[in-house]
């Protein structure tokens, strides 16, 4: 695999500049609130490096972020705007939890639970894909609706069927045989972190080195041209949505099998990772390697968000409230996501202009004859 470093220089430089802009705007907010921006940003970016274990715990946040980002990115490569990673994750978590409580031998148990969650999430994504491919249903609308469907479905099953009789606010713990082992004791870093990195590279291979990946990208750039070239866009769209959903399902499975061992009946312990994934993917330019870096960046911020509260509480003053920390984080994330969004819009505009030019040229040639 040959990497041309120059092609990464531009996005990296843009991202760095964006972080600076975000920090500059955030600085104003922090000063207005009466805190020291130096302490604030030192803690926000540096909290994860406070200790070895803090860093390893921070890495563990990459797992759901990377997978839900991949869920967004695979679809985005086929020009499908998948907002449904959240719901796909719920479904995956539920299936992993349901399989996790039955008796199976260690080793087999994890594999079965993970594969089933992948399939379930995949099918959930595929529904939106097939609706778009066959009936031109807008995927933004359908995936948002499917998110709610998934929420209430999982809520229902967890509340009435999978609940823990001793603690009805949550589901039954998955058995030890289904848990993913800790990579390093006393950290939240479990085996799923390694699997997640592997999956990111697998996605890179799939989208850039296989003919299916070529078809996905071709459909994404211009479905009409791809169809003319022998690609079946409706097949590609449904397949890419299946893979998207699968990635979302894995995020849910790993949260249950790796981190928590259960879900609360109102899903409070797995909420929002799917939506975070959209931002992670945009910052990572919908590219698996970019997503890994972007997920690491988000993970640093997530750790920092808590560190800031402690670090700014000095001299009898209470720390920065979490709401302000999240607002500053939001500003930074928006700033960093802008270049990626800008590129996406630019490409679209460029394509449209070219298409118009080609059409005009064709019309001109015809008229001239």
């Amino acid at each position: 695999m040959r990497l041309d470093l120059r092609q990464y220089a531009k996005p990296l430089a843009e991202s760095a500049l964006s972080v600076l802009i975000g920090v500059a705007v955030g600085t104003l907010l922090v000063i207005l609130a009466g805190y020291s921006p130096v302490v604030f940003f030192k803690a926000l970016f540096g909290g994860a490096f406070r200790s070895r274990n803090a860093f390893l715990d921070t890495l563990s946040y990459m797992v759901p972020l990377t997978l839900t980002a991949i869920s967004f990115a695979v679809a985005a490569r086929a020009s499908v705007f998948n907002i449904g990673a959240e719901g796909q994750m719920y479904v995956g978590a539920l299936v992993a939890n349901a399989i996790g409580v039955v008796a199976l031998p260690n080793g087999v148990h994890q594999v079965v639970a993970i594969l089933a969650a992948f399939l379930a999430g995949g099918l959930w994504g595929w529904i939106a894909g097939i609706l778009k491919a066959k009936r031109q249903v807008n995927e933004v609308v359908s995936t948002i609706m499917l998110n709610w469907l998934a929420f209430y479905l999982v809520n229902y099953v967890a509340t009435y069927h999978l609940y823990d009789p001793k603690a009805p606010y949550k589901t039954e713990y998955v058995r030890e045989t289904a848990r993913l082992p800790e990579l390093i004791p006393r950290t939240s870093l479990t085996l799923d972190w390694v699997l997640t990195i592997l999956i990111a590279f697998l996605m890179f291979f799939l989208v850039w080195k296989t003919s299916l990946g070529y078809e996905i990208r071709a459909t994404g750039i211009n479905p009409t041209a791809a169809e003319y070239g022998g690609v079946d866009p409706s097949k590609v769209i449904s397949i890419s949505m299946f893979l998207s959903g699968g990635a979302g399902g894995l995020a849910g499975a790993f949260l249950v099998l790796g981190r928590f061992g259960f879900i609360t009946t109102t899903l409070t312990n797995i909420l929002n990772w799917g939506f975070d994934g959209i931002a992670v993917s945009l910052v990572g330019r919908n590219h698996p390697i970019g997503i890994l870096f972007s997920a690491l960046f988000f993970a640093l911020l997530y750790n920092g968000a808590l560190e800031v509260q402690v670090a700014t509480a000095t001299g009898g003053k209470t720390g920065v409230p979490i709401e302000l920390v999240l607002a500053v984080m939001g500003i930074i994330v928006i700033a960093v996501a802008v270049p990626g969004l800008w590129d996406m819009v630019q490409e679209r505009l460029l394509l449209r202009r070219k298409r118009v030019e080609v059409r005009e040229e064709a019309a001109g040639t015809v008229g001239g004859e």
Partner: protein
Amino acid sequence: MSKGQLIGILVVLIVIVAGVWYATRPKAPATPAPTTPAPTTAAPTTTAPPQTTAPPKKVKVAVMFDIGGRGDLGFNDMAWMGAERAKKDFGVEVTYVQPRSEADYIPRLRELAGSGEYDLIIGVGFLLTDAIHQVAQEYPNQWFAIVDSATPDPNVRGILFKENEGSALVGILAAYVTESNKVGVVLGMEIPVLYHFEAGFYWGVNYVENKTGKDVQIIYKYTGSFVDRALGKQVSEGMLAQGADVLYNVAGLTGLGVLDAVHDFNVQHGKEFGPPFAIGVDSCQDWMYPGHVIASMMKRVDNGVYYAIRDVVYGNFTGGIVAYGIKEGGVGISGLEELQAFMQIAQEMGTELPDTPENIIAKWQQMRAMYPEEVWNTIEEVKQKIISGEIQVPTTDSPEEIQAIRQRYGVGVLGG
């Protein structure tokens, strides 16, 4: 974007950043802390420590909330209030952490414990139980406390409250006040702590039924959330539509929606006072909608937290369970004293009162005077009997037993 523009933006940015740096640097350590006067009447049960025995060293305490966090004007804010009071009284350093998501619980607790900087780490809320239990095992030399729960670890103090006792008192009030003979309970997530509220409230309603021959129907509903005010309002509106005219809030921030619903209902029907009435929880919530909140079941989480810090300061902190009931000042029904204290606290926290304190108190007294002495006397009488041990209010931690209790009192679920 041209090269010139880019350089321009960069220069502007650098100037901004440098300027901000320069402006903040010299005064960074000197930012004055906002001085808040001590709430004089807030803690009738706390004993002031002897001023002569200064604690030997600067004690540091970390308070960790669950994802509900500050701003609920109840449970979580009360816990922080206790920590702040301890800060003033003992000169301890307190800091709090509000997690972003439940995935933060264990990593952050490990981080706090692993830093070795804190003499005590307090987890606020039942949902932190598993995380505290796990991290307490990993750091056996670190003191922990958890509010509303307990773990088997010797280094963890479980701070519990006898919510059943306080709930019995408001249950009695509810049964007297209801005109439709239908009362409702709006609850958060189905955790054992909330069974205490249920059991006590049902007992209190039943006590009045036996005493007066009134037949009161009770409906309850678990909303599944402590953080969804709109959901609390929605569920309450359902209960009001079914004719319930006293609603007991047992749902944290979600429960503020109960107060909203009752207030809006009364306004829509052109009523200045209930019924329907809401019953507040944890803090004294009577001031929020004067005339519409008949009373609050006070749960002095602040005292529990305050005592834990005090014990660490004076070196007699112990693990194990402590349970605060009416006798220990842990729970109770709100009175004038609490109303005044909590209005003052709300103002100090920057919350705007709906009216001037004098008007709120006047309206509150008018509301309470709508009900005969017999009501208040009965409540006082039961309170004294609970303190003396003559009456023991039932309670439970188990889902099966609460189910049996509900059946015994004929309690129905909303929409079920």
